[in-house]
């Protein structure tokens, strides 16, 4: 494992040389082929839904542990033909930036807060899982220079955080993509190898299948019981909130898709990942639990039925594999967990730079620097922020330690933190009428109703529970996602459908003399309602609290919508153009900066020569332009012809004036350095649009 960590750290640090700007650090220069991204996503996805977690559920409930991996397709049309093209064509660097463009700076501010909570919490969950997975493999203490030191969960987490922090800080997104690619292959191989060994140990697939009770073979869990693992709760928590969160607001994953060379490549990566890699991953992460269950039935002395579910992965791996293979499988397990954490740290650093660092610099009117100097400083800030985020992630572990299992901690976390952002992004992308007033009211009012639900689950969440029994110690860990989505959506719809009323109210108000004072009072009332709710909920649980605060929260949401309508300048045409699924052609035109050329052409294979000057165009022959069906001014992607590099040596540019030297492309020094093109190596040029 030590060798493994050293290799991975060096591997990640090596790819640091591909970072020439923050664009490279965060997005890998938008250059990669779909297959490379599809495989690197495996490590990210599998890491977050770890071997430990799903093996535990596989051991407790059987093959239904796979269901969270096979329920993501419902939102793929929305992703492929809505969110993905929008994030690429609008050139946003973070999800909150979309909120500013689509709504307002205040919407961006609130989205940043919610997203940072989500991302840092996610990192914390990752570290907690890492620590829990590593603990059974380590001794209780170690001695150094004669002193004995106990090995604690937090100590293990801190050491792993330091290792993760080093390569992400110096490597950036390209490092993440390549380490994840390597780790993805390793963990798929290791997981399938373990299944193979397990089946061999049991005497073949037929024996394994016959041993498992029917209940354990079902691919979907029991409808509404038990409360800690049931179909309907997990459908709303993972299939709905989790899937939208995974595809739309998991900045780590979104950035990975943004690192593909084009939108179409991003679609291919997403489709391949969800159709093929996720079902395979479901087997990879859960099979140790199924095998453990089968062994516990026929050899209860080898795997006692009361084995701790969280330890079943390690127990089974130890029983069915040889010592060397066991070490390899453990390294793969750790690899999977690290992959998730490194992706999230990189993504959270991107949010910090784009949504905190830059706006703050702008606000304090920092002195104007050249673009290159600014970029250099931001790259350095990105590296420092990665370190800080890693530390915050470690601290956030403390908030999740109290949950009985990582699975429940993760489920509760998803159900609670994703709904407001999920509703806001979803309606923002697909509904032109959705306004800044509606999105901010959704954040404020939605969160308020969610807090009420958290305090009174037996009254407010119970109507949504589909018959699930409430566990008083952790009430409605999963199905609360349904309630939370419902209340956020209710506020969003209420405010959007009353937009004309808000506008006419504000117009009438502005016609008077004292509109500023009235608005200040109204805004203060909304703040007071929110604060009083927090205070009252902590002081009393009297019967009047629920009806009174349900009404007050709706009133507050409406007041917030009036304040936003008053203070925020919003032009529906400008703020939706190119920013919703209804205007994607316009988004592409804005991305290109001129009219689209959508004639279908082919790749042109060329040798490269350097040209003088810094003119940011490349020059191809007339014949090559004909092959590519391209015109001067079109966007072009230039790439080394070695397909196995997956686009690592490539860059984007604009087509300049053609020449007559067939088979030659003229590029400048910047193109050469960005693409790391090798002397004498052939390239291909492909029209982007």
């Amino acid at each position, binding site marked *: 494992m030590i060798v493994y960590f050293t290799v991975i750290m060096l591997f990640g640090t090596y790819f640091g040389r591909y970072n020439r700007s923050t664009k490279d650090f965060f997005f890998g220069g938008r250059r990669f082929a779909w297959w490379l991204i599809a495989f690197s996503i495996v490590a990210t996805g599998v890491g977050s839904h770890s071997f430990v977690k799903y093996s535990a559920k596989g051991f407790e409930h059987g*093959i239904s542990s796979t269901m969270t991996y*096979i*329920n993501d*397709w*419902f*939102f*793929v*049309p*929305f992703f*492929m*033909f*809505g969110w993905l*093209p929008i994030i690429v064509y609008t050139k946003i660097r973070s999800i909150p930036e979309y909120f500013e463009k689509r709504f307002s700076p205040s919407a961006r501010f609130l989205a940043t807060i919610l997203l940072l909570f989500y991302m840092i919490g996610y990192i914390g969950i990752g570290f907690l899982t890492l620590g829990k997975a590593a603990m059974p493999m380590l001794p209780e203490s170690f001695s150094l220079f004669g002193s004995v030191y106990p090995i604690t969960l937090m100590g293990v987490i801190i050491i792993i955080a330091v290792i993760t922090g080093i390569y992400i800080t110096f490597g950036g997104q390209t490092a993440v993509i390549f380490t994840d690619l390597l780790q993805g292959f390793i963990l798929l191989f290791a997981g399938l190898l373990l299944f193979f060994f397990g089946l061999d140990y049991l005497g073949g697939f037929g024996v394994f*299948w016959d041993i498992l009770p*029917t*209940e354990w*073979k*079902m*691919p*979907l*869990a*029991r*409808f509404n019981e038990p409360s800690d693992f049931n*179909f*309907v709760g997990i*459908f709303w928590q993972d*299939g*709905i909130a989790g899937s939208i969160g995974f595809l739309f607001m998991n900045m780590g994953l979104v950035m990975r898709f943004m690192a593909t060379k084009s939108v*179409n490549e991003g*679609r291919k990566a997403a*489709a391949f990942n*969800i*159709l093929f890699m996720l*079902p395979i991953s479901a087997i990879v992460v859960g099979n140790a639990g199924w095998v453990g269950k089968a062994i516990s039935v026929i050899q209860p002395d080898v795997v006692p039925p009361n084995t701790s579910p969280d330890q079943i992965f390690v127990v089974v791996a130890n029983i069915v594999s040889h010592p060397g293979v066991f070490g390899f499988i453990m390294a793969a397990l750790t690899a999977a967990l690290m992959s998730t954490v490194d992706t999230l740290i990189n993504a959270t650093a991107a949010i910090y730079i784009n949504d905190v660092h830059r706006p703050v610099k702008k606000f304090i009117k920092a002195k104007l620097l050249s673009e290159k100097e600014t970029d250099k400083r931001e790259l350095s800030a990105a590296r420092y922020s990665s370190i800080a985020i890693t530390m915050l992630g470690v601290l956030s572990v403390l908030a999740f330690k109290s949950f009985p299992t990582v699975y429940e901690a993760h489920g509760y976390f998803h159900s609670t933190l994703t709904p407001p952002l999920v509703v806001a992004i979803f309606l923002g992308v*697909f509904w032109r009428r959705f306004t800044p007033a509606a999105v901010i009211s959704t954040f404020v009012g939605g969160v308020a109703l969610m807090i009420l639900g958290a305090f009174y689950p037996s009254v407010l969440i119970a109507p949504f529970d589909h018959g699930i029994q409430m566990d008083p110690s952790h009430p409605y860990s999963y199905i609360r996602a349904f309630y939370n989505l419902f209340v956020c959506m209710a506020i969003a719809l209420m405010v959007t459908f009353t937009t004309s009323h808000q506008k006419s109210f504000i117009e009438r108000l502005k016609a008077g003399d004292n509109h500023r004072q009235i608005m200040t009072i109204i805004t203060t009332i909304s703040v007071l309602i929110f604060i009083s709710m927090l205070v009252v909920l902590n002081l009393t649980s009297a019967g009047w609290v629920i009806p009174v605060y349900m009404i007050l929260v709706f009133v507050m949401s409406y007041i917030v919508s009036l304040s936003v309508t008053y203070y925020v300048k919003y032009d529906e045409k400008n703020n939706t153009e190119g920013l*919703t*699924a*209804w205007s*994607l*052609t316009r988004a592409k035109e804005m991305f290109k900066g001129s009219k689209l050329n*959508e004639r*279908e052409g082919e790749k042109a294979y060329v040798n490269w020569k350097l040209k003088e000057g810094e003119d940011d165009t490349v020059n191809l022959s007339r014949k090559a332009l004909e092959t590519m069906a391209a015109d001067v001014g079109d966007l072009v992607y230039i790439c080394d012809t070695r397909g196995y590099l997956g686009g690592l040596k490539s860059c984007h540019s604009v087509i300049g004036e053609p020449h007559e030297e067939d088979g030659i492309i003229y590029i400048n020094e910047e193109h050469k350095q960005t693409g790391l093109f090798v002397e004498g190596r052939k390239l291909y040029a492909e029209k982007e649009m």
Partner: protein
Amino acid sequence: MPSFFNSWLPFIYLYGVGGLLFLSGMVIARKSGALNMQRKTHRYWYKVLIFGYFYFVFIHAFLTIAALYW
């Protein structure tokens, strides 16, 4: 043998409620013009999307039948 409530009902719920969401995604993508059926690549993606839905229906139906009767 698990009852209908714990065997086929989750399947129906998954592809019924999920199917409604999937269908609304397809309708919005086509109506908004984001999925433009005039373009060859988009026609290809339209088929992939529909294939994907029934591919997962098949996987879950197959696994449920295998669990119950095999």
